[in-house]
């Protein structure tokens, strides 16, 4: 049980940090598409008898690269949608070719945090650390490129390269968080908490801190509620994320009104 | 005396505690070409939005041909300021102009010869016939603007509003657009209210001017309004008005450069000598 708290907290911190940029860059779709597509990697790994984590990693990467390359030629949201369905279609193929997969599908889609084993803490922590390190290194160019892309270009910060880096960060965050919260809901954490934080403050460092704090709160509430009611963690994560966003909007509206 | 096509009466607009428009009053007669001059932040766009009904006024009223403004007013045509059209839009210049005829009607347009002829004529008038079948989002800024003018004019408005159409054009293109507008609107007795922060490109075509600063306005014939005394009172501090070979130059007086609303003055630059 303690394992669940620890791993989930690491996930929340990463989601809060990466999610801050996700909301800033308006990349909600990408944050949904890459984890979704990575599901195919898990299915493929199972087919080959390989490690699920490796499969997730490979397909998150493939998704990020695919979206990055396709969006240079066309609309970003079209690229995301088509890359996603291509990966999902491959996933459908893998599923149809392997018979014994069905029971694990649910936990990969929605997370199985309460069943986390002790030996998963270390890899999660390491990958999480790499993720946060990557964001720390990219912080300033990414901020500039996200808010004022032309100013960034003038300083030699290619918007396209920043986008690619950011996609890779999401891919990494995906790989480490999916076993905990599932492919379908990691993105919910990545946008609900940061969006709420942005309603509360304009200053980036404070917003990122709040984003992490809210994400931690959401995850702890979700685990506690799931433990009590036996309902899936994912349900509480999705609802709590939406609720924090709503509360953030209400707060901002109340502040503007008076 | 013919009725004004546009009457703005004591219009105030207050937003977030700031007075964006303060007692703005002026009229535009049918067929009159009026320049709306002012720097950024003077309130020009807000005023245009009030006239269009896109922004509510906290006081005062706007009359179009004597009647209060209603939501759908076919009397008014509009060319917006920023119109970066999506370069991938599956729409030809011709299609966008066609939408000017009937965008507010329901259903799919039935192709008719009459419609096609009208569109063709309008494209000729704005000299856009040669790129009529090009993807509208791929046209240059100046070409897109001409298409938007055609789109606004094809529904035969009595008043055409243009929000800073000359802002990003070089002087030659700017003068081409003004000549084009003056020609078409004179032919069809269409009144024009065109906003700009530089008065000189409009001097040849303008019948009257509305000069704005800090939300207030002074209106009348060009030589009545663009004078040191009138503008000094408008800006709230001393300005000089110079005539340089027929071009007008408005310069802040020595010392205080802030206007009535406390904004740093942003005056038109002197043309390089």
């Amino acid at each position, binding site marked *: 049980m303690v394992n669940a708290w620890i791993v989930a907290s690491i996930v929340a911190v990463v989601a809060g940090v990466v999610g801050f940029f996700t909301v800033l860059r308006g990349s909600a779709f990408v944050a949904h598409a890459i984890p979704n597509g990575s599901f195919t990697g898990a299915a493929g790994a199972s087919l080959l008898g390989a490690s699920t984590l490796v499969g997730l990693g490979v397909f998150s990467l493939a998704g990020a690269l695919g979206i990055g390359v396709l969006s240079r030629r066309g609309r970003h949201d079209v690229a995301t949608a088509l890359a996603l369905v291509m990966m999902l279609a491959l996933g459908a193929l893998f599923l149809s070719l392997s018979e014994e997969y069905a029971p694990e599908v649910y936990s990969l889609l929605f997370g199985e945090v309460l069943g986390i084993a002790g030996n998963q803490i270390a890899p999660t922590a390491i990958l999480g650390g790499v993720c946060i390190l990557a964001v720390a290194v990219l912080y300033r160019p990414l901020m500039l490129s996200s808010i004022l892309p032309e100013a960034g270009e003038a300083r030699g910060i290619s918007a396209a390269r920043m986008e690619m880096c950011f996609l890779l960060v999401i891919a990494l965050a995906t790989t480490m968080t999916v076993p905990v919260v599932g492919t379908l809901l990691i993105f919910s954490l990545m946008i609900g908490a940061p969006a709420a934080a942005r309603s509360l403050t304009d200053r980036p460092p404070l917003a990122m801190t709040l984003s992490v704090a809210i994400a931690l709160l959401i995850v702890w509430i979700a685990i506690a509620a799931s433990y009590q009611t036996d309902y899936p963690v994912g349900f509480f994560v999705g609802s709590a994320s939406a609720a924090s966003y709503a509360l953030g909007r209400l707060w901002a509206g109340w502040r503007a009104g008076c | 005396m013919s009725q004004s096509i546009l009457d703005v009466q004591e219009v105030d607009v207050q937003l977030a505690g700031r007075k964006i428009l303060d007692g703005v009053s002026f009229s535009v007669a049918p067929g009159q070409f009026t320049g709306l001059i002012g720097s950024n932040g003077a309130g020009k766009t807000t005023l245009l939005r009030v006239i269009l009904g896109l922004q509510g006024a906290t006081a005062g009223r706007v009359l179009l041909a004597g009647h209060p403004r209603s939501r759908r007013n076919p009397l008014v045509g509009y060319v917006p300021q920023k119109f970066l059209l999506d370069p991938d839009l599956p729409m030809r210049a011709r299609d966008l102009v066609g939408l000017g005829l*009937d965008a507010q009607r329901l259903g799919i347009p039935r192709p008719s010869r009459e419609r096609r002829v009208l569109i063709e004529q309008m494209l000729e008038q704005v000299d856009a016939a040669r790129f009529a079948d090009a993807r509208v989002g791929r046209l240059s800024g100046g070409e897109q603007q001409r298409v938007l003018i055609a789109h606004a004019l094809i529904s035969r408005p009595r008043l055409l509003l243009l929000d800073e159409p000359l802002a990003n054009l070089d002087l030659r*293109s700017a003068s081409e657009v003004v000549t084009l507008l003056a020609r078409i609107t004179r032919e069809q007795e269409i009144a024009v209210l065109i906003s700009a922060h530089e008065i000189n490109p409009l001097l040849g075509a303008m019948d009257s001017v509305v000069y704005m600063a800090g939300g207030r306005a002074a209106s009348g014939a060009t030589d009545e309004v663009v004078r040191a005394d009138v503008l000094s009172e408008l800006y709230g501090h001393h300005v000089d008005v110079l005539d340089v070979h027929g071009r007008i130059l408005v310069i802040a007086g020595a010392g205080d450069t802030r206007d009535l609303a406390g904004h740093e003055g942003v005056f038109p630059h002197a043309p390089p000598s």
Partner: protein
Amino acid sequence: MSATAAAVFAPGLFASEAVHIAAGVGALVAVVAGLVGVFTVTRGQSFAGEAFGDIGATGGSGAFLVSVGPLWGFIAGNLLAACAMELIGIQRPRGRDLATGIVLGAGIGLAALFLYLDTTYHNTTGAAVTILFGSVFAITHSTLPLIALLSAIVIVTVAVIYRPLLLSTVSAEMAAARGVPVRLVGALYLLALALATALAAITIGTILSTALLIGPAATAIRLTTRPLLAIVTAAAIGIAVMWAGIVLAYDSYEWPPAHHGWPVSFFVVTLVFVAYLLSGLPGLLERRRAAIAPPREPAPAAARAES
């Protein structure tokens, strides 16, 4: 020639009733998806289109729970979600995707709950897989009239708001200046999208729903410059890939490894993807040519105040 035909069209293809239904429904859905998809892509609402597919699954699993037909669940869920997105009410594209994401997150959370309850109370496993990866070969005769009716509703709705929708897509400001009720038109379109994706998701599955909505439309938009032509082209591409996918899926019953066929969705999506990539070739070649020989006309100067 007939040997090739026999290789492509496996025996029994044209006689199979399942194939007839699949081809008919698939074509109908492709037409609806193409029509709605052109607006979806030009309005930059691909995320909403994809999200409705997943939210439909929530509705479906909810319907399963209360023993109501899944189609109604898909429709109710999507329409409710569309209302929620409109209520959040952000009009800027980036903000709109955020609203979509929030609603989607809540929706998927609900799906998690419903599926858990399905398994607990109805003792069915594999519900998740079936709903998310549904197959076009699983449609029955009885639902056909309903599907046709709902498709007609979507087509009529879009046809009615066609012109105001087109102008507000080009420029919301210009449309508003003409008195077009931009928010109302946008909301009606979103509802039509919600209904269209519900329809598509229940008949051909959520993956194909998104693929047929976005892919053919994006491809058509690159190929033509006229709105109506883009819609017709999108529908045509959709029908073509759908039928080709069905033929290939039927053929694949003989293929290794399991001899129960590869999924239709795999074939159709691959074809959609390839079509989109191919449609980008002309632009790519032109960019290469322009890079070698610089354009002759100078770009319009942005400098002001030149004497």
